């Protein structure tokens, strides 16, 4: 039965993430961005709330929660600061990739690598990768990190774990700077582990897309909330700018785009957790979030006019970061390609009730 209530337990976790975002992430967003890192106080607050191992299976001492939990928490954290949300999470979607493609052994290999003092794992998704004997060569123009203890590469049906020979050359970064920004080079890097599973890789791609999509939801929500609130305070032509129909309708359309994208993300995440087909749905949700961000990011700035263009307000950051997030994991084109291929396999792809799911 259709039910959008996350349930009491999950609501509590989401509330914890929201409070952390409001009290710690948002107030320090510019500081984190300038430092290209989150500070020790924020890391301590993060450790205290225990959100670090959300999807890590319980047998690995994690919370063992699923994709719905992940997307709900991600939205909250990213509503505070998407860059910080990336920086704080040691595993990110690298974990779920190895979980889906390699299972327990792969997860153990990843957690062991990160245990050795390195901070984060980075996931890179490519169509194909240059593999020679036990080494891997790859060049990614941008990853949102300054340093990494592990790189997970998802290429086709294969997932590779690399823990040595990781070269990160710092770049300025278009957004998400709190997580860092670097060009990633793996030049004949040793492969610490390789796992192959076509179905697992498909689910891994879906989860990675939903991970990024839910961060995008958070950024978009902040852009909507901030610009809407501003429209109540700023006056032009003798009344709040939000009371001019042109801007009011724009903000309605922004909110509608956000709400619709969120529902697609939640439905796809629910499919992941129920082990239902989810590749096309996750790809579509990701594409929808990216499309929505093209509307919401720039128009969040537009509502503030000249003030929006200045770094005194967060909407310029929302605009940059929403665009940057949408470039990850194959971005828009790969997503619509995958969703489209799946869709046209039948003449009636959205038939009601055939599979028991919408």
């Amino acid at each position, binding site marked *: *039965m*259709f*039910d*959008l*209530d*996350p*349930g009491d337990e*999950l609501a509590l976790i989401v509330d914890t993430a929201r409070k952390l975002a409001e009290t710690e992430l948002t107030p320090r967003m510019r500081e984190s961005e300038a430092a290209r890192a989150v500070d020790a106080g924020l890391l301590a607050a993060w450790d205290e709330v225990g959100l670090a191992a959300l999807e890590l299976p319980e047998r690995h001492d994690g919370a063992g929660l699923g994709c*719905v939990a992940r997307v709900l928490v991600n939205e909250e954290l990213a509503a505070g600061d998407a860059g910080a949300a990336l920086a704080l999470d040691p595993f990110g979607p690298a974990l779920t990739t190895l979980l889906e493609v390699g299972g327990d052994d792969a997860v153990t290999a990843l957690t062991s690598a990160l245990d050795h003092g390195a901070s984060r794992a980075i996931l890179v998704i490519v169509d194909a990768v240059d593999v020679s004997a036990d080494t891997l060569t790859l060049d990614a123009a941008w990853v949102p990190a300054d340093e990494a203890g592990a790189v997970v590469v998802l290429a086709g049906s294969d997932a590779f774990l690399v823990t040595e020979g990781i070269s990160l050359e710092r770049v300025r970064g278009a957004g998400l700077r709190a997580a860092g920004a670097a060009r990633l080079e793996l030049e004949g890097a040793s492969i610490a582990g390789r796992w192959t599973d076509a179905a697992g890789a498909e689910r891994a791609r879906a989860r990675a897309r939903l991970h990024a999509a839910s961060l995008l939801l958070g950024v978009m929500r902040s852009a909507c909330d901030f610009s*809407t609130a501003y*429209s*109540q305070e700023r006056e032009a032509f003798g*009344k*709040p700018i*939000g*009371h001019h*129909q042109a*801007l*009011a*309708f724009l*903000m*309605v*359309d922004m*909110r*509608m785009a956000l*709400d*619709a*994208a969120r*529902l*697609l993300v*939640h*439905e796809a995440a*629910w*499919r992941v957790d*129920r082990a239902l087909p989810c590749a096309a749905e996750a790809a*579509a949700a990701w*594409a*929808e979030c990216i499309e929505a961000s093209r509307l919401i990011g720039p128009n969040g700035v537009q509502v503030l006019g000249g003030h929006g263009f200045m770094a005194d307000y967060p909407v310029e950051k929302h605009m940059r970061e929403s665009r940057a997030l949408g470039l990850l994991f194959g971005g828009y084109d790969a997503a*619509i*390609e995958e*969703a*489209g*291929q799946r*869709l*046209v396999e*039948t*003449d*009636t*792809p*959205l038939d*009601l*009730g055939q599979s*028991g*799911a*919408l």
Partner: protein
Amino acid sequence: MEFAIDAAMRERIEEAREVGQREIRPAGLEADRNAAPIPVGDPFFDRCLERGEGRTRWAGPNAPKSKPRKSNVILSLLLAEELAYWDRGVINATPGPGLPEQSVIGMGTDEQKERFLGPFLEPDKPRWACFGMTEPGAGSDAAAIRTLARRDGDHWILNGAKCFIGAASRSDWLLIQATVDPSKGRAAQRAFLVEQGTPGLGGFKIEKKMGLKAYESTSFTLEDVRLPASNLLGGEERYERKAGFKAAMQTFNAGRPVIAANAVGIARAALDESIRFARETDLLGRDRVRDRIEAIARKVRKARLICLRAGWLADQQRANIIEASMSKAMAAQVAQEAASMGLELLGLVGGRGDHLIEKLYRDAKAMDIVEGTGQIQRMIIARQLVGLPR
């Protein structure tokens, strides 16, 4: 969190699908070819009655008082989508107490329920009722209606004109929204139950429409229509509490997600026909064609989910003003876009005027007009979101 359709729902949807394929789609296509509503005596309506349609949800005068059934708006939305997939116009043509039913159940006196809904308990023949709000000079701005209600002793006298009213000429009775003082806006509105054949009710003109031809949209006039006070919906006391306009708007509120679900159904039909045509003509191998189909499919899915969210809130007895309006605003646009995209895939075939997608393109437009245009929905949302003044 749950996005599943349970077995009982699937069964109901399957039933609707079967009727839709066998009865509804062919009836809609025929009405479109004939450019006229399905005639009153058409056997289609008898079969509707045989299937148990055309009846009131009112339990009847002697029904034992029972706890109100838990609402299942979600199911009604899924069915609204499925039925509109086969033909939205035919759904509106189906006999029954229709749009005003909920108003009579919710606000009518016991005597009014028995008198006006009683014949719909076990109808001896196809029967209709209709709701008359829209006027030539008052569409979106429903507070601006000019049909005048004047008190005359124990009676009311109605004068005015209504337009675009579904099933008006064939209805047993019409719920007519009128005003006792046009200068006082909403507070002065009253709803009257007017029986067919009442002297002064006439001038029925069935409009020629662009689409949705299976049901009649009718204009008519009220000239010194004399009604007993007992025909005032809910009695005078209700209006002393200033509930007149609110009553009408409640009817609209309940309708928005249903219209949205109808629009989703139209959009889905256009999508499926587009894929079918593209497959038959070897277009699916083209990236651009696939991308366009994917974009529309995504829009249909999000419109469906937005719509179900509004229904879910209603089932939870939670406020859904924003969500209901969002569903209507979004789904209506999606239906138009889906049909429009389908026509472009058809190319010149679409220009012939005999393809289902071409019909859907015409049908879909009404979804962005009835029960509040997309612009009205945005105004409603904006009032809540940014305090847009009235």
